[in-house]
């Protein structure tokens, strides 16, 4: 049995959003529709559960709007096709899960070093190796610390609803192009396979400069050639020669992202004496638990992380200090909790509720809000 915890859906017109039609779709389809709105016309998808609905939707819909869907022979080919398509200046996307995201890490590292923008979707399933094909949040460390070699960063966006999937996918394309980085959408089984009402709104995002670095032949760039080459392009074009200069570009880019792109949601944090930190599907459970706790008179708020990297370190420190106690709820063996502990600098006690708090032994188990509430009571 799979239980969905529906949050409150608001249709209030917010600044920067246009009201448009609403439809009832799941998170996977919302990612597809979001990508099409963002101008994605190339998709390379290899089957792996629980993201199969994404390549299937794209295979059906992309050709209708002049796009290209290609099923490659493996995830290695998929991510390298993405590398090629993005290097040629297109908006393109791949999606995968579990074992597939591990296979893609080499080229994610490669694209990061060549500053090639691209969007990668990881619909997380539980556990290392084959793991299970059901829900979990065990890819946090891999996603946020750089799963490949060399020390690079990806922008990591964590949707917790189909609406988030639709919106964040648009944002992911924008941020990838803005900073010439990989945007990783860290969805999970629960978010991917639950259906909700989604408002098909187009985010109004600032216009970006033309991709004059893209591969299109020298004749199409006034005779200038493009070199999308590991470690060389930025050296020649931006900073001049040298390894320190190249690494300065990484540092500068990542610092800019950390300064400008931190995103999180506060839920009932006013006057909270306990702060739950969570993301993705677990954040919905946390919110429901917070509601239940508030009904009992316990002042509990939730900080839902939207960008897992850049990590909202300062905001979290502030909120944690105000509350005085932190509970991390994540459906894993404890990964996010490390970053939270690092952010609050041991000034605030941090407790963790993870995969061991699930209600069933089978892969269908979930951390129920009642279980979170128990934890809240024990901390109050």
């Amino acid at each position, binding site marked *: 049995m799979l239980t969905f915890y529906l949050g409150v859906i608001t249709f209030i017109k917010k600044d920067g959003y246009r009201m448009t039609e609403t439809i009832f779709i799941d998170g996977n389809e919302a990612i597809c529709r979001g990508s099409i709105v963002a101008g994605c016309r190339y998709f390379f998808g290899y089957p792996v559960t629980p993201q199969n609905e994404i390549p299937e939707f794209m295979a059906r819909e992309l050709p209708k709007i002049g796009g290209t869907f290609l099923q490659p022979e493996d995830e290695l*080919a998929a991510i390298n096709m993405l*590398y*090629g*398509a993005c290097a*040629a200046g297109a908006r*393109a996307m791949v999606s995968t899960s579990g074992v597939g995201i591990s296979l893609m890490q080499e080229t994610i590292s490669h694209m990061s070093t060549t500053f090639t923008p691209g969007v990668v979707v990881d619909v997380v399933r539980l556990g290392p190796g084959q793991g299970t094909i059901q829900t979990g949040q065990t890819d946090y460390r891999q996603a946020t610390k750089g799963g490949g070699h060399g020390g690079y960063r990806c922008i990591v966006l964590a949707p917790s609803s189909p609406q988030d999937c639709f919106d964040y996918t648009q944002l992911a394309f924008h941020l990838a192009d803005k900073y010439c980085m990989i945007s990783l959408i860290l969805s999970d089984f629960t978010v991917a396979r639950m259906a909700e009402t989604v408002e098909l709104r187009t985010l109004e995002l600032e216009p970006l400069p033309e991709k004059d670095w893209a591969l299109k032949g020298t004749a199409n760039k006034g005779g200038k*050639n493009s070199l999308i080459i*590991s470690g060389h392009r930025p050296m020649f074009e931006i900073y001049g020669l040298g390894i320190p200069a190249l690494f300065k570009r990484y540092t500068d880019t990542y610092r800019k992202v950390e300064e400008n792109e931190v995103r999180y949601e506060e839920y009932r944090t006013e006057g909270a004496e306990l702060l739950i930190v969570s993301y993705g599907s677990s954040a919905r459970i946390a919110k429901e638990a917070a509601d239940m706790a508030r009904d009992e008179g316990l002042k509990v708020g939730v900080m839902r992380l939207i960008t897992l990297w850049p990590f909202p370190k300062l905001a979290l420190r502030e909120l944690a200090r105000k509350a005085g106690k932190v509970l991390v709820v994540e459906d894993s063996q404890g990964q996010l909790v490390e970053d939270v502990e690092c952010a609050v600098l041991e000034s605030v006690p941090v407790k963790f509720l993870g995969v061991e708090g699930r209600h069933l032994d089978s892969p269908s188990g979930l951390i129920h809000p009642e279980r979170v509430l128990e934890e809240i009571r024990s901390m109050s």
Partner: protein
Amino acid sequence: MTQIKQKVTTRPQLMTKAPITYCPGCHYGIVTRLLAEVLEELGIGGTCIGLVGPSCSASLQWNIYIDWMSAAHGRAPASATGIKRVRPECTVFTVQGDGDLVSIGLGNFMHAMLRGEKLTTIFLNNACFGQTGGQMAPTTLIGMRTTTTPLGRDERKHGYPLHVAELAASMKGVAYSARYSFNSPANYRKARKAIKAAFQKQLDGIGYGFVELLCPCPTNWGMTPLDALKFIEERMIPEYPLGEFKNVDSLDAEVKNG
């Protein structure tokens, strides 16, 4: 002093002034020049995109002034597919060594050929991993000593050499497959023709174009340039015969004829 009356050849305009940095006796410099000549002759210098893997031939990006991208090891045919789908009007090609194309990258190479991608691959076969120090490659000859087969390649332990041009010719999506060497002026001219044909198949939209070029690696073979050339003639060509293995004008016709 002889006066120059008529210039019969010149440095291809696509070639930059960057030095050719290959070892003495290596034929990659010849490949560089031929490639530049062919791109110029076909008039596609301004609209082509080349991909190199992490290998000695990656220096091409400094020697020929066109758009270049460095692919991950073995993945150039996949990345080239991505580029070609976005820019079908551009000519997209890969230059790959034996470790890159047929060791780590054999799967991606075969699937790109099976899809009949309109791509061109120039395969440089020097029977070893050149850049990393001469280790065994799938194309290493039986009995050949490398740094990872110090007693010589033993087929019972290390398997058999891979015949890539023949393999490519057996793929339905391939329009052209040939193998040549630069061991004689006649073969040099045939190799040049083959490179041009492999590009022409892409330009005509027929299918995958493939050329294998046997290249000596004197440094890693532990030979003088002349001995290495002799090794090509006496050992490599008997194992890897030269010639055209496939040349069709339509993939459909090829299917019908079986």
